């Protein structure tokens, strides 16, 4: 099959060039979009940054009617909820990671639990929130009554439990990956010296994968900080600085979800966007660091 005329050849060469440039352009476009996202929220946050300044991070009162935009209650709410969720999730994440990455790497049990964990990640946030309102809230209310605390049912504790369930799948998939990367020669060497599996895990696997497990937990923290719907539905939406872990509170993401469409006034809207900027910057830093660690780990 021969092509002889030059017009056809020109067409071919044009198509070839156009395609390659198109691919590169689409990749470039993604970077541009990301940069634009950052610039957009930065610029939209400027009115708030100018008007509120640094007190955004330590002001205790959030009262948009009075033009008080102190974000400390939400900063605390976000950090406490996320860290509590992290503390609850870590033992589970590491256990499931060991289960799938070391104890049962093949076979029915492995497939069953791996799929279950994937489904856990597939359930939408709004559904976790909804079911949490009906199952977890009454449970926590009873718990609070028995501890003679005000029986809100909703609050930091409730949100943290749901949040921990939601972030477990992310850390599990990463922890499982790094555990599976442990060279079997290392493990075999230990076994051949008479080590038990417990000792292999404690002395070989955990030290070898420490940085990778850390990165997995870090990345799940990134998830937790920005998680919105379930938290919004379960945290109680209080603007007051929380005094204990059962208190109703608000996270930055849930404040945005609740107040964004109702925000009147430029500074108010801008203050909400500034929280978005904060979330964006923090999660991006966490993500880049976490991914970098994982990448270095898999190359070693």
């Amino acid at each position, binding site marked *: 099959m021969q092509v002889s005329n030059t017009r056809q050849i020109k067409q071919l060469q044009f198509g070839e060039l*156009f395609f*390659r440039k198109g691919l590169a352009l689409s990749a470039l476009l993604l970077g541009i979009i990301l940069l634009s996202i950052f610039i957009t929220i930065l610029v939209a946050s400027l009115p708030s940054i100018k008007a509120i300044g640094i007190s955004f991070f330590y002001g205790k009162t959030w009262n948009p009617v009075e033009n008080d935009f102190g974000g400390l209650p939400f900063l605390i709410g976000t950090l406490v909820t996320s860290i509590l969720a992290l503390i609850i999730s870590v033992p589970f994440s590491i256990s499931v990671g060991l289960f799938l990455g070391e104890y049962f790497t093949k076979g029915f049990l492995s497939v069953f639990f791996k799929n279950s964990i994937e489904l856990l990640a*597939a359930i939408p946030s709004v*559904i976790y929130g909804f079911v949490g309102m009906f199952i977890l809230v009454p449970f926590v209310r009873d718990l609070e009554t028995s501890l003679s605390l005000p029986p809100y049912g909703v609050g930091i504790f409730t949100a943290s439990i749901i949040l921990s369930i939601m972030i477990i799948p992310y850390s599990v998939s990463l922890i499982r990956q790094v555990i599976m990367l442990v060279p079997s020669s290392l493990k075999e060497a230990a076994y051949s010296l008479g080590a038990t599996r417990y000792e292999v895990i404690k002395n070989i696997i955990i030290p070898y994968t420490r940085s990778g497990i850390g990165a997995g937990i870090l990345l799940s923290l990134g998830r937790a900080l920005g998680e919105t719907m379930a938290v919004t539905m379960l945290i109680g939406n209080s603007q007051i600085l929380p005094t204990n872990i059962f208190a109703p509170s608000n996270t930055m993401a849930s404040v945005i979800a609740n107040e964004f469409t109702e925000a009147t006034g430029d500074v108010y809207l801008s203050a909400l966007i500034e929280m978005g900027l904060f979330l964006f910057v923090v999660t991006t830093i966490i993500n880049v660091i976490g991914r970098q660690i994982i990448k270095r780990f898999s190359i070693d």
Partner: protein
Amino acid sequence: MERGIQIRKYKNIVLKTGVVLFTVIVTLPLLLVLLYIFKRGISAISWDFLANLPKPVGETGGGIFNALIGSAIIIGIAALIAIPFGVSIGVYLSEFRKTKLAYWTLLSVDVLQGIPSIVIGIVIYLWIVKTMGSFSALSGSIALSLMMLPSIIKSTEETLKLIPDSLKEASLSLGVPYYRTILKVILPAGISGILSGVMLGIARIAGETAPLLFTAFGNPFTNTNILKPMASLPLVIFNYAISPYDEWHELAWGAAFLLILFILLLNTLTKLAEKKWRVQF
């Protein structure tokens, strides 16, 4: 010595039991959520539920037709935007692995994947809703398309990376231009992986609520104009779930049931796609 071994064995068993126990505990919430949704949801499902609009507070019955149509439109347009864009980025990443642009693009994908969905909502609000002066289904679709990009890009890249170079060379040696080689040889050979990425992406955005709050916004009526506010399943679940009315909770349970069903279906299809349509080299 004898006792030492006993203790070591004991520790070994304790650890294993603990790991198994914790793993089982982790799957309990899944079971609980699924069972609860099925129990509450199935009773809500009826023909009226699927074909009617929501009724005002106080009246029983009514349905979520508006949200079903809305979700289909919003997800459909999001997929139409994200699939070609994501696949071409994936192709770029697998074809030009060592370039600087590829390095930065991979980093961008990671960052995009980590951005909280509510932040995407804010940005699309500022870009589109504010510019066009109205909440709209289109803005919701654009927000969701950004959310599904990472899974399409990653699965495309990872699938194509595994396709042996010999296949590309076979095509090029027949005088087939590069772009036809990619479109007609490489992409079809990787179709199972790409499709599973697309379906996982759709499953992910089907339940996304946060980015729709300030974009598609929701609509109590059936709307097919993509430049106007539109209802969607997750929005309906959220709005009715936080309402104090039992009738609306009923609607929300029904909607949640349908949403879960759809997501389970997509997950199953993904597994099938990975197995059945896998191309043997």
